[in-house]
């Protein structure tokens, strides 16, 4: 069976895996974005807290993904929970770092002006600081997503959802007729998803970054 026949025969299963892969990455990205930006907002004003947050998240990233999922299994069991936790944690670093850098990069004169015309702390954050820091934050989100696309494949090790299952199954049955097709299909679909997500981010950038600060 060649690759194209394989795709034709298994398209149902492939679509489900692809959908699940995209879905888990998307949901973990939403969680990582919310948590990451919150950490950034909470820490950017203090040198100490900011570098703590960056160091902590980058330490997380150095843990091998297989080990991280392996360590989570005894705590939260198999399946979706370890996948979601691991992916969310890995997604944090670029978002936290870019949030802090972006928020710190806002011209102090503008912050002064915002306060001076009577904006409350929350209003200033929501209407001046975050919109101005949004381009670097969005870049962080993009980088995170690309990373999670690959890492999500490892989740199959903990019986998680997604295209990793194809790859693992293929590797486990190397030599059999469909092994290579499985690995190839899994890998290519992940790349395709990554490209689609990236295109999505370009569109989001167009829609959400003010024309006044777009490069």
């Amino acid at each position: 069976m060649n690759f194209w026949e394989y795709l034709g025969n298994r398209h149902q299963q492939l679509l489900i895996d692809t959908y699940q892969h995209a879905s888990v990455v998307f949901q973990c990205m939403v969680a990582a974005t919310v948590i990451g930006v919150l950490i950034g907002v909470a820490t950017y004003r203090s040198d100490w807290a900011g570098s703590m947050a960056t160091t902590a998240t980058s330490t997380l990233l150095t843990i091998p993904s297989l080990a991280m999922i392996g360590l989570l299994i005894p705590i939260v069991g198999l399946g979706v929970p370890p996948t979601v936790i691991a992916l969310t944690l890995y997604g944090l670093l670029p978002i936290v770092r870019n949030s802090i850098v972006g928020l710190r990069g806002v011209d102090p004169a503008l912050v002064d002006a915002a306060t001076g015309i009577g904006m409350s702390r929350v209003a200033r954050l929501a209407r001046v600081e975050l919109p101005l820091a949004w381009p670097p934050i969005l870049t962080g989100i993009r980088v995170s997503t690309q990373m999670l696309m690959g890492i999500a494949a490892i989740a199959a090790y903990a019986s998680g959802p997604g295209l990793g299952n194809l790859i693992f199954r293929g590797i486990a049955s190397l030599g059999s007729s469909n092994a290579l097709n499985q690995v190839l299909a899994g890998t290519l679909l992940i790349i395709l998803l990554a490209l689609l997500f990236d295109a999505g981010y370009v569109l989001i950038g167009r829609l959400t970054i003010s024309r006044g600060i777009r490069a």
Partner: protein
Amino acid sequence: MPESPASASPGAPEAPGAATGSAGTTCATGTTSATGTTGATIELESLTKRYPGSPRPAVDNVDLEIRAGETVILVGPSGCGKSTTLKMINRLIEPSGGRIRIGGEDVTDMDPVRLRRRVGYAIQSSGLFPHMTVAQNIALVPKMLRWPAARVRARVEEMLDLVGLDPGEFHGRYPRRLSGGQQQRVGVARALAADPPVLLMDEPFGAVDPLTRDHLQDELIRLQHELRKTIVFVTHDFDEAIKLGDRIAVLRERSHIAQFDTPEAILTHPADDFVSGFVGAGAALKRLNLTRVRDVGITDCPTVTVDDPLQRIFDLLRSGGSHEILLLDRRRRPYKWLRRGDLMRAKGSLARAGTLVHDTVTRDATLRDALEAVLTDSSGRVAVTSGRGTYEGVVDVETLMNSVRELLEADRLEAMEAQHEREGHRAGRTHAEQEGAGGEADA
């Protein structure tokens, strides 16, 4: 202009300590169409800022009373605390001690966010938010005060008109597509959008080129003439201070007020060496602008009219102590300078003899004008005329120099005297202010 139900009584003084958010809008709803002063008094009372870890306060015991509708310039060398003082008025910097009263109301402890919505604030390089359009920037404060949308829209157009920008053209532009001068105008429009009684300006024209700055200053004078806000303006440029200020506070380090007076008084009677040093090397020249010809005393010079017989003119020139006589025309207006020998050379014809009078000054002219005329006229003196142009006397270079020297000397003596007086009064005055400051609120 549609009026919201929440803003039923424009200009009504806000009750001190009113706790609801809607109360904050009442002060900001007075319209610019109202005639007379829309500003409010500002009183600073022993205002002090101490930063932790530094032994001396950054701002030390500042007392300042600013009248409603007045433009007061805080001027001083960099690092003297003038900006800090300004930022304490809207409590961008929280004072460590002292009181701030605006329009008689003590705002030292009120919610700073509400306070700032009632106080316009314009800063250097405009402080416009780059991700918002011009209209969005201007609409910020009115929106925060929950003006109805239609009123905000109308106000934005009105403000753009006010600062001389075409609403149709600039409404939807982003700040980066404006020139420095235009950005600064929008900055001022934003500061004034909610019609605050008080406007704080922190070196607003510091970052624009000199030509634009001059233009913006003229514009601000025009605006202020129209609006009569209370403006507190920080600059380190003394010439800017002279141009814009009704009164100028010259600050030395730690925001100590070296002198608080009208530009004229500061130029003519600098309180001490620090102020005269700050007024700068041009003080004598700037001083010339503030003194009139009538103050220096004009001298007489021999005159003849065109109708006098030639023999008399000859006699005068030959016998007189002066080298020159002034020839007047039939209506006694200065016509020509005649020197010894001029008539001989012209073979006795008055029409050809002498040099024409180019320039005359009136008694109301400033000494600077007089000096200008003297320097351009070859004779080293200038004829002084009445308003109708008839001869009254002359001023020459020597008189000018002597009187300027005397004036400066007198200024110095007077300043010393004034300083003694001030020092004597100071203790008593601070005491009196602390006792009775509450009584003179609200002009």
